[in-house]
Structure formats: C-alpha cells, structure tokens
C-alpha cells in the first residue's frame, strides 16, 4: 500500500510539470499581451496612460524577459503560493480569486449534493425496474437535461422564477446585501438565488450520473451472486444494497477527480448568464482580455485540484477494492 501511494505521488509530479507547460503555452500563444490590449482600449476611450506605469509593470513582472525565464519565475511563484498579479483588477491574483472562491464553493457543493440526491434514487430505480415505463420516462427526462444547452435553460428558468415567485433576476443575492456582513436576511436572499443555478448546473450532471449508475448496477445485478443471494432468501433491499450497489459505486469514487476542479470553477457559462459572483466568469474574462497571470494561475489551480482529486479517488479505490491495490493500477 505504501509503495502504491509513493508511486502515485511520484507519477503526479511529471504530470503537473507537463500541465504547467501546456497552460503557459496556451496563455502565451495569442498574439500580443495584456498591455497592448489595455493601451488600445484606453486610446480608444481617449484617455492617456502613463507609459512609466506600463514600463514599471512590465519590468516588475518580467515581460521584457525571454519566455523560458518568465515561465520559470511563474512556476517559482506558484510553488511559493504567489499566483501573480492581475492587471485588469490591479490586485494580486490571490485577492481577486479569494473573494469569490467561497461563494463558488458554496454553489458547487450544493449542486453536487443536489445531483447525488436526485441521481441516486433515479439510477437505482431505473436499474431495478429495467425497461419499465418509469425507467424510460426518467431516463428520457435525464437525457433532456443533458441535451438542452445550459445557458438557455438558465434564461428560461430565470424568467419563470421572476414571473411566478418574484425572485429577482441573476446574481447570488439581492443587491443591498453585497459586501454586507452575514445576517439572516442575507442568508435567505442567498438561498433564494441559489435555487436556479443549482437546478441548471445540476441537470446535465444528473443525467450523466443516472446513466452510469444504471449501467453499472445493471451489470452487477446480472451476476450470479445476486441470484444466489435471492435464492437464499436475502430480502430484496438487502440483496440490492449490500453488494451490487456497493460494487457499482466504483465509478462514483473515480469521479471525485473531476468533481474537485468543478467545485472551484463552477459552471462558467451558466454563471455568466445568471451573472453569479463566482470564479467562472472571472476566468473567462481573464482569458479574453489576456490577463495572463489571473488566467494561467487559475487554470493551474484547477489542474492541480484535478490531479489531487484523481489521486484521492485512486487511493480510495485502492482501499475499497483489493484487486486494484494488489495490481498496482486502476482498472478500466
């Protein structure tokens, strides 16, 4: 087990190195840099920018240096917890992201729990009542959620929420609560505003999860040990939960890897439509305006989280499933 752990940890290092290279390349590739965009914008607005300030910023952040050195200093900063400086917000990236991360995590965690709460019963029902009308209907509804573009669903729900319940449109809370200390009224407002994002972001994930749970559970239910258990008179519920369900949850644990980054980034497009104060829109606008440290460091953070997530899920799987532990690798 210790060997396996060490091996997995060691394997993560080159992966992270490659990721950092890729992200740096992707951020550097678009022609020009933030200062050019910024200068052009300001000139279009008829304002003048002190060239000294630009010079100073360029020098501080090493834009006059060749690319490899810039890469090295970026990585060096990352290793020390310094994510760089956001030119657009004129703040260190840590501060820009920090204020939004908590809200994002709140939205995402609730969404994930919502997804699980919906997907589990439906998936189990679909698998145990295979090819029944209930199975078809629920699968179809799930697929519908998968097939509708999220941003549109967000728009439509937003409209109906306003018409039927009078919830104000967009954002995570009513305007008067922004930057206010936490209070009961603020809490209620946040909860009211959370309903739509959670439903919208949750639908696609729910559909995917129902399908996978159903497929995995069906595979298990066909196996002979289930028949044996039933023949020996194990109550149906126990015969379902004790082994088949447990076995079919492997996929669920290996999903942790992809859940962690999505907790941080939130669903970007939906967040833009609903103008939520999460990190997703931040990232998108940073990518658009070539605010390279903000975009790059944030992407890197997401990637690190994925790697950690995969690591956690691999370790959890190894604990749960001796076949994986002994073979020293994940089975596909």
């Amino acid at each position, binding site marked *: 087990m210790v060997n396996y752990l060490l091996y997995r940890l060691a394997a993560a290092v080159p992966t992270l190195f490659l990721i950092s290279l890729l992200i740096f390349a*992707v951020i550097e590739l678009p022609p020009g840099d933030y200062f050019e965009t910024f200068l052009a914008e300001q000139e279009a607005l008829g304002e003048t920018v002190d060239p000294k300030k630009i010079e100073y910023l360029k020098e501080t952040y090493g834009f006059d240096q060749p690319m490899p050195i810039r890469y090295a200093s970026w990585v060096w900063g990352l290793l020390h917890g310094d994510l760089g400086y956001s030119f657009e917000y004129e703040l260190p990236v840590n501060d820009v992201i920090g204020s939004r991360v908590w809200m994002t995590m709140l939205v995402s965690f609730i969404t994930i729990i919502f997804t699980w709460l919906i997907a589990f019963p439906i998936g189990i029902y679909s698998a145990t009542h295979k090819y029944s009308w209930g199975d078809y209907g629920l699968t179809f509804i799930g697929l519908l959620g998968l*097939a509708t*573009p999220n941003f*549109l669903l967000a728009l439509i729900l937003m409209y109906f929420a*306003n018409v039927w319940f009078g919830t104000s449109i967009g954002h995570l809370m009513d305007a008067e609560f922004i930057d206010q200390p936490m209070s009961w009224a603020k809490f209620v407002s946040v909860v009211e505003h959370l309903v739509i994002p959670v439903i919208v972001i949750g639908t696609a994930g729910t559909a995917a999860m129902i399908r996978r749970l159903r497929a995995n559970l069906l595979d298990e239910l066909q196996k002979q040990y289930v028949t044996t258990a039933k023949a020996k008179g194990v109550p149906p519920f126990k015969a379902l939960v004790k082994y088949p369900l447990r076995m079919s949850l492997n996929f669920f644990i290996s999903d942790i890897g992809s859940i962690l980054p999505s907790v941080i980034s939130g669903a970007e*497009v939906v967040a833009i439509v609903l103008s939520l104060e999460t990190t997703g829109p931040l990232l*998108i606008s940073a*990518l658009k305006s*070539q605010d390279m440290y903000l975009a790059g460091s944030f992407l890197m953070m997401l990637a690190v989280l994925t790697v950690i997530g995969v690591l956690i899920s691999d370790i959890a799987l190894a604990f749960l499933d001796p076949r994986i532990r002994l073979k020293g690798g994940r089975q*596909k």
Partner: protein
Amino acid sequence: MKTSIPKNGEPMGHFVSDAAFDPHSIEQLNDEQKAYYLASQKKLMWWKFKLHKLAVVSGIFLALVYISILFSEFLAPYDLNHRHVKNIYQPPQSVHLFHEGQFVGPFVYGTKYELNLETLARTYAPDSKKIYKLSFFCSGDKYKFWGVIPADNHLVCVEKGGTLFLLGTDRLGRDMLSRIIYGTRISMTIGLIGIAISFILGISIGGMAGYYGGWVDNIVQRIIEVIQSIPSIPLWLAIAAIIPVSWSPILVYFAISVVLALLDWTGLARAVRSKLLSLREEDYVLAAELMGAKPRRIILRHLVPGFMSHLIASATLTIPSMILGETALSFLGLGLRPPVTSWGVLLNEAQNINVVVLYPWLILPVVPVVLVILAFNFLGDGLRDAADPYA
C-alpha cells in the same frame, strides 16, 4: 431358422436408398436455420440494432437531417440574408386551410403592423381579410445553390405581397426558419469534421501507445491525463482566442472544429489503447509480424477493424458534446461569427432575458439542438448494443 439374408438373385427384404450415404444428414440445417445460424457478423449487428426501436427512429431522423443539409437553399423559404425591413421581430405566422368555413388550401393571413407609441413595442396582428396562398416547388428568392449554381427554386413560397414567417423573424427581419435550416448545415457538419479529426488522432496515438507499450505508452498516458485534467471550456476558450480575428469565417469554422477535436481525442485514444493492449497478444498478430508486416499495417489492417464497431458507437456518443461545445463557444462570442450561421450563432442572439420575454421565438433554434442531441444519444446507445452482437 429364417435368415434375413435373401437367397441369391432375390431382392432384399428392406429398402435401401440409392443415394450416397451422408452421415451428417440429420444435423443439416434447413434454409431458415442456415440464415440464422450462419449469418455474417454484419447481419447479426443489424438484427440487434433493429431491436432498439428508438435507435432506428433516431438513425432515420439523423439521416433525414443530413440529407436536408444538401438542399438547405431549396428547403428554406427565404434566402439566408434576405432582410424584410418591414417585418422586424414579427412573431410566427400559422398556416390555415379553411377561410370562414371554406376550404382554400394552405394559406397564411396578412399581417397588420402597428407601433405601440407608449411602449414602443411592435405589434403584429393577423389580418383575416387578406389571404395569401402557399404554393410548392415555386420560384422565390434568388440564391446560388452550394454557392455556385444560380437558382430560385424553393419548396414553398407565398403569393406576392404576403409573408411566410413560420417561426417569426429576428432583429433584422430575417426569417428564423430559413436561418435554422441554413444553420443545420454548419452545426451538423462541425461535429462530423471534429469527430473525424479526433478519430484520426485517437486511433493513431492510442494505437501507438497500445501497440508499443512501455515508455511510448507512458508518455501518451501522461499527455492524456494532462489534457483531461484541465476543464474543457476554459481550454477551448484559450485556444479559440488564438484564432486571429482577421481569418475568413470559413477558416474560423475549420479552426473551431479542430479546437473541439483537439480536446476530444483523449477518450477515444484511451479506448483504442486498452483494446490494443489485450489484442496484440493474439496469435494472428504474431503471424503478421513474422510475415514482416510493419506496425502501421498491423494496427490499421489487423487490429483496428476488430473493434471498429465499438469505436463508431463511442464516436456517435461524443458528437453531441461537440455540437453543444460549438453552441457554448458561439454563445460566448468566441466560436463562429456571423455571417456564418449556426445554431450557436442564432442562440447567441437569445442571450438576455428581454429576448425570452419579448421575442420568445428567437430561442427556437434550441429545438433542433435538443432533438439532434437526443437522437445521437439514442443512436449511439443502439450502436453500442449492436457492436457486440454475441453478447
């Protein structure tokens, strides 16, 4: 005692067939059984596929959609860029058959346009006095078929003076139905081109990893891990941001499909790799190797055909994500740009809540998106079941 052996020259006491003796005669299959037991693999797949009714229906639907993109210009009632300046944001019109209890054939009523001076809202009311008959296979807007052959034939047009906006018009007075029909062409093919590219990448890279194993496999595995560990939308955005603004729309179109493909091949490569890892130990691979076949030939000629059907099935299931990816990118303004018309570009105009409230027909392009994605999902499910007909 009586013996059963007849005397010389006398006939035998029982019947003996003159036909040649065939020891397997009883086991022989009749034609019906033969057709069943000795059916080729393709036939078995087809039988299995047919059982999945929903998949068959979806397949037919998708085939029709793909056929329709061959004749978009003909099917659309109006030209893509025809602006009806007097009919901006006109709601959908309906087709009638009877006028005041009398059968007239398919026709539409005229519309009365009014500008509400208080709210500045445009109101269009049907004018039941004017009747404009519809005709089929008629001449209408001029267009160039496939951008080459000049023509003016349309499936349906309306009498002179009338308008036919079955799905309403947009902010420039362009017919939504025509735009959706034209958008089909882009949206449906972008997934195909993307999947073709990711197929080539997936088979060649995954094939190399699976066939050679060892360090090649290790590197490929790492690369796949890296690509999969970055969330797709930001990465799409970052790559799409590289596309220069000055490129022509067609170039952008190809670039976007490449962008979609660049992130999509990893799943396919993984599938190819794991299959190859087990298949390369088979005897026929050794035989091919001994006969001097090169790795390329062994992979493409001997190994890949063995699980091609699986690959096609899984590819069918990934096309929807490409179509949705295109809509998301176009929605964010980083995908296709007008004048190229795709469903994503059309939905881009339905970005804000005003549209949903005031001009709900502008979100209609979502209907084909949902239908096509559902159809691809069902078709993929059916294909996946059929890919392994012996299961």
